[in-house]
Each structure stands twice: as C-alpha cells, then as structure tokens.
C-alpha cells in the first residue's frame, strides 16, 4: 500500500472570537474578575458623564472670570485669555513672535532628527544654524531686532531652553563620567566616583539654591553670571550624574568577549569604546535613560524656587490675578497637557528607536 504523505501545510487554529466571547474571556473569567469589572463600570458611570459635562458642556471658552463663575462648568477662558502670558511670560508683548518662531524652529529640528536616516553631517550644521537663529531671536540686538534681557525670558521657551540644553549636554557628560568610573587610572576613577556620589547625594533644589545664592558669593565683585545659565549648569550637572550610573550599568552588560574581540583587532581605547562598546551599551540603556530624561524635563519646573519664570511659574502668576482666582484646575490641566506631550513624545520615540536598533539578538 502506498503511504499517504501528509504534505498539506497546517495552519494555526483560528482564534478570532466575537464580542461576547471576548468579554467572557477578558472581563468575566472568574468571580473576582467579574466583581472588578462591575465596580469599574459603576465608577466610570459615576465619573465620566459629570466630567464631560464639566469640561465640555457647561464650560466657558472665551469669557471673563466673572462670567465663568456664573457658568459653573470648566473655565477654559483662563487659558484662552491668558495663553500668551502663560506661554511667553514677560517677553515683550509685541515681540512674542520671536520666541514663537524659535520654538517652531526647535520643533521642526526635533521632528527632522527623529529619523535616523537623516543623522548626517548636514543635520549637524542645520542644528548649529538653528541654534544660532533661535539664540538671535530670543536675545536680539542684531539685524534690527531690539535686544531683550534674558531676565525677560520666561514661560514655555524658558522651560524648553532649560530642558533641551540640559538633556543634550547632560547625556554626553554622563557617558564620560561612566567611562571615567570604569577607568583603570585611579585619579580619573576616583574623581568620577566622588562627583557621581556627591551629586546624587543632594536634591536638585539644593543644587539650584547653591548655584543661585551661594555661587555668586564666591565671585569677585562686579562679575555676575546669568541666572538662567547658572540654573542650566545645575540641571546639567545633576542629570549627568544619574545618566552616568545608568550608562555604567549598560557598560557592565557588555561581555568581556566584545572588549577582547575589539582589542585583538588592534583597535585603540577610543575606537573600541566608540565603535564597539558604547553603541551596544547605550542601546541597552535606552529605557532607563529616557526615564531619567523625562524626569529631568519635569524637574526643570523646580527653577521656580530661584525666581525663574518657567511655564509653571507663569501659570501660577496668572492664577494669582484676582480676576482669575479659583480656576487653578483648568490652568494646571493645560500645562499638564504640555508636559505630557513632551514626555510622551520622548517615550514613544525611545520605543521606536529600540525597535529600529533591534538586531535579532
């Protein structure tokens, strides 16, 4: 008898199910799960309609504070009527297009830089030009733009300035510190350890205070250093210490074999680190580094305590206006959305980067 060859390709069983089966499997699979589902639905039923009513139906969008109070719903007017102060703060009113344009340039550069295929030399030049133009727009004093004191820089541009520069400068510094901590040279190693442990041992607030209150005491009379710059340096120094420890973790995850293979090819220390070790180590530590960058981004709001008017402070200033008192929830929701957009973009970009760098291992 001839053997029957079963050569038909077997497909996996179809697991598509209907709504009811899905609900049974996911929402009511056990008594406890059913209980949780019912409780959740009850709370949603209680909360969501009221929230929608408050936020959208009863809300006022372009009224005065007094009209808002009469309306009863959410008073988005506090945002719409004060948006220019919340965003731009004390930047001279008629020149506020300048920080706006600077931010548009910044966002365009960030969006272009998302794509790794564009990480070429020209993008570097583009950033240099962009930075120069942004600086010029903020500071003025050239090409007929009136000069604006940096003490007037406030609101969202200030927050972005502190965070974008803080993060981009802190990352390479952190990498250097991590390499220093692994160094075989005792002086470099102990310097890095002392730096990292000291900075991690104090809160950011105390660093900010030091830079704004104590540091000037040590400077000779007549010499002042810009307040923003000092806060900026404090943020960079602080974040770098955290980045350093995360990167060190990544370096330790690379096997000895990778170091040995690089060395046996004759690569010197810098080539070995730049071409072999760091690309792998930094890829491993993308998730924790982005965690640090996100918290550093939010921590820039701590500069309020040294008198800088970042986004949070301009919002608080708006709220202290008697005409708009009592609508803090709406105002804070607005800036929370701004912060969320920033943090969420970073985290979604980090996931995309991880996906793109996946190499089958």
């Amino acid at each position: 008898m001839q053997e029957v060859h079963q050569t038909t390709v077997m497909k996996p069983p179809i697991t598509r199910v209907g709504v009811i089966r899905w609900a049974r499997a996911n929402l009511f699979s056990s008594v406890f799960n059913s209980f949780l589902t019912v409780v959740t639905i009850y709370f949603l039923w209680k909360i969501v309609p009221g929230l929608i009513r408050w936020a959208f139906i009863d809300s006022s969008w372009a009224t005065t504070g007094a009209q808002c109070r009469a309306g009863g719903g959410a008073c988005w007017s506090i945002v719409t009527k004060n948006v220019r102060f919340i965003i731009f703060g004390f930047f001279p009113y008629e020149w506020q297009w300048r920080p706006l344009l600077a931010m548009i340039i910044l966002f365009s550069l960030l969006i272009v830089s998302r794509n790794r295929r564009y990480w070429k030399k020209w993008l570097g030049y583009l950033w240099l030009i962009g930075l120069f133009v942004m600086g010029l727009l903020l500071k003025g004093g050239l090409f007929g733009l009136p000069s604006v004191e940096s003490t007037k820089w406030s609101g969202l541009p200030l927050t972005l300035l502190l965070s974008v520069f803080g993060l981009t400068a802190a990352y390479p510094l952190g990498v250097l510190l991590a390499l220093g901590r692994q160094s075989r040279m005792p002086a470099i190693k102990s310097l890095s350890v002392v730096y990292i442990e000291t900075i991690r041992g104090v809160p950011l607030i105390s660093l900010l205070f030091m830079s704004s209150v104590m540091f000037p005491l040590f400077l000779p009379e007549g010499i002042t250093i810009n307040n923003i710059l000092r806060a900026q340096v404090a943020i960079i120094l602080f974040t770098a210490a955290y980045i350093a420890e995360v990167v060190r973790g990544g370096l330790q995850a690379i096997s000895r074999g990778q170091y040995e293979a690089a060395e046996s090819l004759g690569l010197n220390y810098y080539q070995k680190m730049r071409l072999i070790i760091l690309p792998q180590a930094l890829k491993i530590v993308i998730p924790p580094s982005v965690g640090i960058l996100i918290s550093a981004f939010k921590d820039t709001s701590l500069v309020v305590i040294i008198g800088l008017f970042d986004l949070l402070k301009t919002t608080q200033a708006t709220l202290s206006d008697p005409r708009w008192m009592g609508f803090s929830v709406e105002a804070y929701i607005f800036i929370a959305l701004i912060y969320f957009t920033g943090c969420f973009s970073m985290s979604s970009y980090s996931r995309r980067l991880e996906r793109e760098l996946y190499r089958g291992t």
Partner: protein
Amino acid sequence: MANELPDKNNEKLESDPIVEIIDMHKWFDDFHVLKNINLTVHKGERIIICGPSGSGKSTLIRCINRLEEHQRGRIIVDGIELTNDLKNIEKIREEVGMVFQHFNLFPHLTILENLTLGPIWVRKTAKAEAEETAMFFLEKVHIADQARKYPGQLSGGQQQRVAIARSLCMRPKVMLFDEPTSALDPEMIKEVLDVMIDLAKEGMTMLVVSHEMGFAKSAAHRVLFMDEGEILEENTPEEFFDNPQHERTKLFLSQILH
C-alpha cells in the same frame, strides 16, 4: 581531499621564528597559571595545543596578543617584544588574528561591517577597498551571501566562519584559535574545520587550542600537551597520538578518545 595538503613532514619551514616565548611565567594573583613556557613558532608552522581544562592552554595563546599579561620572561612577536608599551601591543595585535570560542562578532554591525571595521580603523584602508577584501574572504569561507545580515541571524558555524574571515581581513601573520569548535553544535564543526584546513593549505601560521584529533593529524606540524601550566610533551601528531610519552598525556588521551 586531505591529500591536497602539502606533506607537512617534508614541508620546508622558513627558519625565522614569528613567535618566540622565552622562560615565560604568569600568575593570576597567587595562582601560578603558566610555568616556564618556552616555545618558538616558525613562519608557516601549525601547532595544536591540547590539555585538560584549566591547564593554561587558552591563557598561553591569549598572552601572545596581550589579552593576558605575563609577569616573567619574554614574548617576541614578529620581532617586537611585548611590553607595557601600548603602541607595541597595538602593533602586535594588528599582525595577530584571533578566533574565539564564542565567536565574539559585533552584534550591532552587519557581517560586512564586522569585517571592514579593523581594516578601515586600524589599517586605514579606504572603505571600498576594505569591502572588496571583506567580500573576498567571505567568499572564501563560503558565506558571501550573508554579508548584509547581522550576526544574530546566523548559525553558530556561520558566525565562527565570519569570525575567521574577520581576522583574515587584517592580513595577519599569525592566527590564534581559542577552542574554535567547542561552542558549536556537532553538525557545524566540520564546516569550520574545513575553513581552517583551507587556511592551513595556504601556509598560514596557526596556533590552535583544540581537541580535534582529525584536524591535528591532517594539518598540524606539532602537538603540545599542557597540564597544570606546563608544556609536558611536544611531538609530531603521529607520535603524539600513537606513542605518548608522559603518563598524564596517556591519561588525557584515553579520556578524550574513549
């Protein structure tokens, strides 16, 4: 196929030594791993080093390109003495290729990039030329069709052949093999040994830490047996396997030959 190999017993070796190890000792902390090692390797010579695990055989070849530092005695490679001078170490590493047990390819680079890295950055070769050389050697290890893939997508045997090609791209004068087939699945050992035999036919100077008897018999000029940090016995493969002198050699051979 084995008779394609030049008869290694009648093969005339050039007399200049390429590696000279003189009265060399090494310690790991207090542990004396290598004792009084004396070894001269001539150009074109192929030496198999075997011995029980922990006998110091890997450490010995790792000393030759300074992955391990020796504490006493001298090691001279291609006329350059290994000292703490970084420049000398890098120069020697350019001339000495190494193949590892666990391949150690760079997982973030494509196969082609793995091969061109050394020539481009160390030898300062132009990229196009380096790629041409890389393809030549990939062809040689029968794996040119995988050039654009990443190491993680290849089998162990393929990865080890890439690792050999990566060393060859540096045009080394000596090749060190540290148990090149020990981490491989049995069916992949042959493809790697075949590549090594091809290399032998071309007269490459090779120091191989391995227990592959077949390879030793067909390609090696000398077999060294190491135990407890010493070279106990040294002979031609035929004599070594058929007529071992030392008790420990006999014991070792009886254990690996079943």
